[in-house]
């Protein structure tokens, strides 16, 4: 191609073409390949991370790809918000040597093998294949998070954020109502679950001595969570019933009011500590527990939104009158969406309370709302994958920019505004999420029958 013709195409097109060229060798890497590459990287860091970090002169191994080391408190001196160039260089080299190079190299080198392997499992049963991938993902994450406790905490919070984002996407994305009551649902779930576990399994000032042995706690914790979700779900009736008669801005205001009512309610409820909050939850929300709930949540929510009953949400959003005329029970549909979304928000709130082991009404207010809305709209409306991407990226971004302190809340909104300008419905909007499609081998030569069209 001559330079003249390249000049005529736009910069974004050049960028896109370059990206496509760089990505093309990895097109045929199946999900299994990426997971195995992840496993190799995690093991590499486990065994050599510390040594390499010491060699590079870093005092400890970078917890989140070194983002916390790159940034520092903003000042007027050069280099403003960044750390010294030597340190940044060290971090970049660390990232390249431990993460980027081995990751892509392994994924690329093993693609023949991983395609063959994933085809063997896929042929046997889609179910086994999906479970196998999830198990592998769990192992990779576990090894990676075991290296630093900070990293583990961030991952646990991120997984909870995934549940919250998905549940909000059901209402705001799939049903298209701008609901702002989610922190309220989370608060209800968090308090109900906390009261349940604190009262039963711990000696506390509020609820007296433990009533059941602490060894029962892990087994009754799911019940506590389901109860929290159920109560949140019932509280969602306050928003669901007005939604029969009103939509849009008005419903947004009603749901916002609901959030503040919940906050004031718990602030004035001395039994659970009022504005001082409630602490001392037993340590029940461990990494595997949250991982299982997240996987369950994604599975159930994805099942729902892909069924015709769930698609009815889209029909109600796009044209309610037409939905009604085509036998869709619109009231039941709206009710389901709100109660279902609130259930998962409540459950996530319960998990969150047991990760932080302290909750107060103030933490379920506007800032939380801004966070969850940002995750939904950044990731993409009407999309399970979008919600996962949104929750993970906004959470990691929030952690990465932590050294900037307050300025973090300038950087994140700017990024959000940019996304809204260039992709108004979010990064990955209106896409179906199909695990069976994801775990398929990508090299079509592996597949018999050869229906390789894509």
């Amino acid at each position, binding site marked *: 191609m001559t330079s003249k013709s390249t000049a005529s195409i736009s910069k974004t097109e050049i960028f896109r073409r370059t990206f496509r060229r760089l990505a093309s060798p990895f097109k045929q890497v199946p999900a299994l390949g990426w997971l195995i590459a992840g496993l190799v990287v995690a093991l590499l860091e486990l065994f050599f991370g510390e040594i390499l970090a010491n060699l590079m002169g870093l005092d400890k191994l970078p917890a989140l790809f070194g983002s916390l080391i790159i940034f520092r408190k903003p000042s007027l001196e050069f280099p403003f918000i960044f750390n010294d160039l030597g340190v940044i260089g060290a971090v970049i080299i660390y990232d390249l040597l431990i993460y980027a190079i081995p990751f892509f190299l392994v994924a690329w080198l093993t693609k023949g093998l991983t395609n063959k392997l994933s085809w063997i499992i896929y042929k046997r049963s889609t179910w086994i294949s999906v479970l196998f991938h999830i198990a592998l993902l769990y192992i990779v994450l576990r090894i990676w998070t075991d290296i630093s406790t900070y990293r583990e905490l961030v991952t646990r919070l991120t997984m909870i954020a995934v549940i919250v984002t998905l549940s909000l996407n059901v209402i705001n994305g799939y049903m298209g109502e701008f609901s702002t009551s989610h922190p309220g649902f989370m608060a209800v779930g968090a308090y109900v679950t906390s009261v349940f576990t604190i009262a039963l399994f711990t000696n506390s000032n509020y609820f007296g001595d433990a009533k059941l042995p602490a060894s029962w706690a892990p087994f009754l914790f799911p019940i506590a969570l389901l109860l929290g979700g159920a109560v949140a779900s019932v509280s969602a009736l306050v928003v669901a019933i007005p939604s029969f008669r009103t939509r849009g801005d008005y419903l947004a205001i009603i749901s916002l009011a609901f959030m503040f009512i919940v906050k004031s309610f718990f602030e004035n409820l001395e039994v659970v500590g009022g504005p001082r909050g409630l602490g001392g939850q037993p340590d029940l929300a461990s990494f595997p527990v949250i991982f299982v709930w997240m996987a369950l949540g994604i599975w*159930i929510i994805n099942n729902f939104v892909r069924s015709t*009953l769930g698609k*009815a949400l889209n029909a109600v959003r796009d044209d309610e*009158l*037409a939905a*009604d*005329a*085509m036998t869709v029970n619109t009231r039941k549909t709206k009710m*389901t969406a709100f109660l279902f979304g609130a259930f998962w928000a409540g459950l996530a709130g319960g998990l969150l309370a047991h990760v932080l082991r302290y909750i107060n009404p103030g933490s379920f207010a506007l800032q939380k709302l801004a966070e969850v809305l940002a995750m939904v709209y950044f990731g993409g409306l009407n999309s399970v994958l979008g919600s996962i991407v949104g929750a993970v990226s906004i959470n990691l971004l929030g952690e990465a920019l932590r050294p900037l302190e307050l300025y973090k809340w300038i950087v994140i909104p700017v990024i959000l505004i940019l996304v809204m300008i260039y992709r108004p419905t979010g990064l990955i909007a209106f896409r179906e999420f199909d695990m069976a499609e994801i775990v398929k081998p990508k090299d079509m030569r592996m597949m018999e029958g050869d229906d390789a069209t894509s």
Partner: protein
Amino acid sequence: MPLLEVRHMTHYFGGLRAVHDFNFSIEKGDIRGLIGPNGAGKSTIFNLITGIYRPTEGDVLLHGQSIVGLHPHQIAAKGLGRTFQNLRLWRHMTVLEHVKMARYSKLTYGLVGAFFDTRKRRREEAEAEEVARHLLDLLGVYNVAHELVTNLPYGMQRRVEMARALAIEPQILFLDEPTAGMNPEELAEMMDIIRQVHEQFGLAIFLIEHRMKFVMELCERIQTLVFGEVIAEGTPEEIQNNPKVIEAYLGEEVAF
């Protein structure tokens, strides 16, 4: 007993009388037409029968049973399918999803099935898909099953809407200006489609239309509505020669 009977239906929007003493009955296999100038209240009558508005007075009987006061989705599930004047399609859904959605009332797997992907759900979804695909085939939009409706040309969107209305297994099909905005070619196709579904499903069809040629060719009986009142009723020939109808459409005849 007629399939559907409307007795003395009157409706007010506030102080405005939109429909006055409308009577109508239709049997299985009939094709009836409703014509009238803009704003005569034709669409209002459709909306009253299908439950979007509740008539101020009068009754609507399906198989002799009143359906007044039921929700639109309940009325639809009883077999009153309809299309809309201004195409009410769901812009983020594919063609196949549209038609499957109209099978909503036939699904019995409930929320448990929806959440946990049970065998019953898979079976029922597969059945719904089969019905949907059959209808898409019938209406000649099978090859765009996975397209978003917004990507389709107008004529095809009309067919999708028709397929969607048929998927609820209607006994009576209400077509609100099925040829609005169509070119002569598409119009001829639409006429064939209506004839075809009429024959194949033995449907009763009630249609609103502006194009006289279309109505005159399809309908056995026609009612003319002006300012909410039926001023003439009869066969196409009778209507065509009725002085009141001519007056409503063309204005009063002035003697030379």
